[in-house]
């Protein structure tokens, strides 16, 4: 196998407890995870299992307590410059309009204003937001803001896309639209994607491979499933195919115990 685009090698993340000194909370334990070049990998797991922690490690926003991160074969130091990150929460700068938000990355890189502007306009068009350049984030709907965030990330042409439940705040229809759009954009120039979600259907519909995490604390992968559904896919239609249902049952079976564990733990607290 060639060098993976992204490799987390025996990564452990432990946080010092804020309440009790000396106490430690291990969010992620001994996790090894690889994303091949051009591969779409989803990570599913019960809520609060440390999925976001894993992604932050991959992005270089968080240093693992132990273990290595390799990006395109190179060890990761500081921020992961080869990757774009799409956040779960609102990440747009509220004081910038849509166009200026999309431009931000180019501006930081010192690209000339006129050029970056025309490129940003192109990208806004590609995510279906032509004519919304002057709108501020608060004047856009949730789905539109996600599209701006998508354009903001893609304009920098990252080799790796890290996505942290990007569509979880959207209603189901908007969400399926966005998933299809994401697949379209992705199939145009196959980037490597690490997609975090708690929604198993979303994971199967989008991915080449689904990794199932155990319930936290000390989360680790407990299963890996290749998704052999044909592409191009339509996330609406693919859900109805027998193979999808089969995969869903199979993965859900592996997940169920962990979900119940996570649920029981959250009830106890």
């Amino acid at each position, binding site marked *: 196998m060639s060098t993976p685009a992204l490799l987390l090698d025996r990564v452990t993340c432990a946080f010092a407890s804020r309440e009790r000194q000396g106490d430690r909370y291990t969010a992620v334990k001994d996790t090894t995870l690889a994303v091949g070049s051009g591969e779409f990998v989803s990570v599913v797991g019960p809520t609060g299992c440390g999925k976001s922690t894993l992604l932050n490690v991959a*992005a270089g*926003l968080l240093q693992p307590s132990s273990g290595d991160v390799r990006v395109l074969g190179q060890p990761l130091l500081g*921020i*992961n*410059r080869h*990757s*774009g*990150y799409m*956040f779960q*929460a*609102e*990440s*747009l*700068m*509220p*004081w*910038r*309009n849509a166009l200026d938000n999309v431009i*931000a*990355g180019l*501006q*930081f*890189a010192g690209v000339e204003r006129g050029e970056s502007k025309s490129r940003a306009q192109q990208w806004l068009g590609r995510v279906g937001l032509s004519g919304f350049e002057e*709108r*501020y*984030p*608060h*004047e*856009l*709907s*949730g789905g*539109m803001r996600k599209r701006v*965030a998508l354009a*903001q*990330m893609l304009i*920098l042409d990252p080799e790796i896309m890290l996505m942290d439940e990007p569509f979880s*705040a959207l209603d189901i229809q908007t969400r399926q639209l966005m998933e299809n759009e994401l697949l379209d954009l992705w199939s145009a120039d196959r980037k490597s994607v690490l997609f975090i979600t708690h929604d198993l259907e979303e994971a199967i519909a989008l991915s080449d491979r689904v990794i199932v995490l155990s319930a936290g604390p000390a989360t680790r992968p407990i299963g890996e499933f290749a998704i052999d559904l044909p592409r191009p896919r339509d996330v609406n239609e693919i859900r109805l195919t027998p193979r999808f249902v089969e995969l869903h049952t199979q993965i859900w079976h592996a997940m169920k115990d962990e979900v119940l564990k996570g649920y029981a733990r959250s009830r106890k607290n």
Partner: protein
Amino acid sequence: MQEAGRTSADDSPVPGAATSTRRPGQRASRGRIAFYHVLLLGGLFLFWYVMTEPGLIPPFYFDDPTRAKFFFGQPIEVVKRIWTWFAGGSIYLHLGVTLIETLLAFAIGTALGLVLGLWLALSPTASSLADPYIKAMNAMPRVILAPIFAVWFGLGITSKVVFGVTLVFFIVFFNVYQGVKEVSPVVLANARMLGATGRQLLRYVYLPSATSWVFSSLHTSVGLAFVGAVVGEYLGSAKGVGYLIHQAEGVFDIDTVFAGILVLTMCALILDFIVTRIEGRLLVWRPRAAETERL
């Protein structure tokens, strides 16, 4: 000093978001309100006139019918005084001095507050070191410093500007500090992922966030700069509207005192109006309550 409703808007789309369009019904009621405003003002002046004009109504509190006039002035005299000031041009020098002091105090105080607020908010060590002193200085009744500044910096403009700065600085400082602390960690992480260096974070994330808080305190800080100038003049100076008021008070010329107060009030209103306009232009990105159109 915090402003309510700063949280990001909910997920509901705001189609059009044309918040500046006024409803026709609203405009009509606005005209009526303005009419009542004028009516109320006229009523107040009439009341003032009736109560102070000697011999107009039988005396009921003061034995001497001219006593009310002595204590409260007379509206006609006050208006006349203002008229002579503006027509004769003698007020412009004083008003100019007061306004220059206000603007300088505002500009310097804002700049200092911005720089120090950013610095302390971004440097935990400096912040924890300076914290008790900042708190103490803010808690101190700073008006008491005015005479000291007069001794240190003389009776000219400087002492008033310095005094105004001490008033403005803290407003801006605390707002900037808050503004930096309130930057969403997600927005920050996103900017870092988009490749922002430390410097760019400061310029494109922290500064816009902080300035938005400064703008939201603009009314207060401009107002306090004005207060600083006038109080400074009142306590010792040779020019300015505060000085005029002080002089008149020394010879019990109540009409002139009231005239000065009215001129100051009008100035403050004009400043406030300008600030509102500037604020509206600079804070277009702020979510406002959506207004529906009445059909």
